[in-house]
């Protein structure tokens, strides 16, 4: 419009959505700390080749089970020490961040895509299809999730990829339920009817009109699933069903070094600590996200 410039000064406007989101997210101090830890973790994962002093798989036969530098016998050559075959622990942990992040992203993407798709379909489908989908999800949910993942990996064969697929399948019923509930709540609103009166076809209404309005709880669930994915992959790795040695995956690293738990504490402690800190940070961040995005839980 050409005369837009000649309009009177716009009156004060309430803050934009993003600003409001940030201001309520910022109120939760834990969430902000979680966010920063998560960002640091991202940076480490992205720049692993630059940050890591050594290759994660290179073995220094002259330095087996060297302790961290502050302990007797430790040196600044290997800051966090080495493992049983002489690989630099710090480098392995840094590269491990890469794997964990990669696992998280793939698993969450897979689970979310599949889960949201099924959830939207269930929300709009005739009763029989809805029932079919939801009962299937109930069956998946009725197994302990790790056990089911384990069984699936056992069938598919142990590898990182199969572990990720198994975990995605185990996680996606949560997304289906969440999406379906949100869709059912949104579907009865007048703007959806208005879109139908305007001539919107079912697919457009499902994915263009309704779905964007259901995203808030899905984002929160995705963030929290990220930590579950990291944790479950580590657990599968620890059980020997996930990433295979010598992949520097944190869970696998834990499993490899189980026997040194008394003699060389650092080999076990640092991967465990990494898992703990990452999962905690993501959960804190997810909580903050929920508080900021979910108006029902928002403090007035």
């Amino acid at each position, binding site marked *: 419009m050409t005369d837009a410039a000649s309009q009177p000064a716009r009156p004060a406007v309430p803050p934009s959505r993003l600003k409001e989101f940030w201001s309520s997210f910022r*109120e939760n101090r834990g969430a902000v700390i979680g966010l920063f830890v998560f960002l640091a973790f991202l940076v480490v994962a992205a720049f692993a080749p630059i940050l890591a002093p050594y290759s994660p798989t290179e073995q220094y036969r002259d330095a087996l089970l060297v302790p961290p530098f502050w302990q007797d016998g430790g040196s600044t050559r290997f800051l966090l020490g080495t493992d049983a075959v002489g690989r630099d622990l710090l480098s392995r942990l840094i590269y491990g961040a890469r794997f964990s992040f990669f696992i998280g992203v793939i698993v969450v993407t897979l689970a979310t895509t599949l889960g949201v798709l099924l959830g939207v379909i269930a929300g709009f489908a005739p009763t029989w299809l809805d029932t079919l989908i939801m009962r299937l999800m109930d069956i998946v949910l009725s197994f302990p999730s790790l056990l089911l993942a384990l069984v699936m990996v056992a069938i598919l064969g142990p590898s990182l990829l199969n572990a990720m697929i198994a975990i995605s399948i185990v996680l996606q019923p949560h997304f289906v339920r969440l999406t379906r509930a949100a869709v059912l709540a949104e579907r009865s609103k007048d703007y959806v009817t208005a879109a139908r009166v305007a001539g919107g076809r079912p697919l457009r209404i499902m994915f263009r009109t309704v779905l964007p309005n259901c995203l808030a709880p899905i984002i929160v669930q995705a963030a929290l699933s990220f930590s579950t994915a990291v944790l479950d992959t580590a657990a599968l790795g620890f059980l020997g069903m996930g990433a295979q040695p010598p992949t520097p995956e944190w869970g696998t690293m834990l499993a490899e070094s189980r026997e040194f738990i008394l003699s060389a504490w650092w080999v076990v402690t640092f991967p465990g600590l990494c898992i703990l800190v990452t999962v905690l940070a993501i959960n804190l961040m997810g909580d903050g996200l929920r508080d900021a995005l979910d108006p029902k839980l928002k403090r*007035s």
Partner: protein
Amino acid sequence: MALLEIRNLSVEFATHSGKFRAVDGVDVTVDEGELLAIVGESGSGKSVSMLALMGLLPWTATVTADKLEFDGHDLRKISARARRRIIGKDISMIFQEPISSLNPAFTIGWQIKESLRKHTNMSRSQRQDRAVELMRQVGIPAPEKRLQAYPHQLSGGMSQRAMIAMALANKPKLLIADEPTTALDVTIQAQILELLTDLQKNSGMALVLITHDMGVVAETVQRVQVQYAGQRVELQEVDGLFENPHHPYTAALLAALPERATEKRLPTIPGVVPGQFDRPQGCLFSPRCSFADARCIAERPTPAGHDLGYALCHYPLIDGQPTGKENAA
């Protein structure tokens, strides 16, 4: 002596984007056995001021007042425990949505008797009798049977009657009805309003009716307090208010009623109620007022005298014409 006296009550909410003043220096006086209406649009602070009195606001709210006195008690000073003894016994409140104001997990009878149990030392059978009596008083047929009913088994009108029965359980001196009929159909609304006014007349209880419906006001109350954007803009007897409103907002509001319109196009009030981000500096109604001048925009008005309905205006209207402009000039 006034039963309830509130002077200069203000309520501020802390929000993400700063403080929001929902009630701004409101005075309310209610005499014993009186029927007062507080009228206003959404955002006028009519409900919030009463919730502040009841102490029912969330923690984000800051309540300040020069005087907050009920039946000789200073509500600003008393402890939470003493306040609870007054609230629910001497002051009761009913709300707009009867269905959601009743606890769906318990029967109507249990809820009425619970309120009796807390504030009286009646025996179990006395409580039962009193509950039946109350249900009969609010016109619920077959009260013994209805006491056993759960809220979802009652219609909207019946639920509102049950709410009123609960509110009356301890013979309150003051009943605050917050939009009691807005969610109900007209024929049911007529029944409930009649019930409320009859109760007020017969039991000597004071009734504060919060509403946005001018029709309800005209047909039921004696004194009307008009609120706008958290301020009291006018206080008058109902006949005077409808015949000769002194505040431009009241006048404009009455003119906007379709039934008072003389031609097809309705007179309107331009603009919207000021929100958190566009509160005017002077008179809050000045941006929408057809009589506003430079003084209205710059200066906050003070209430006029009793003859002019305490109108919060620099130039209160008499017969639709602003007065006092020549003195100011």
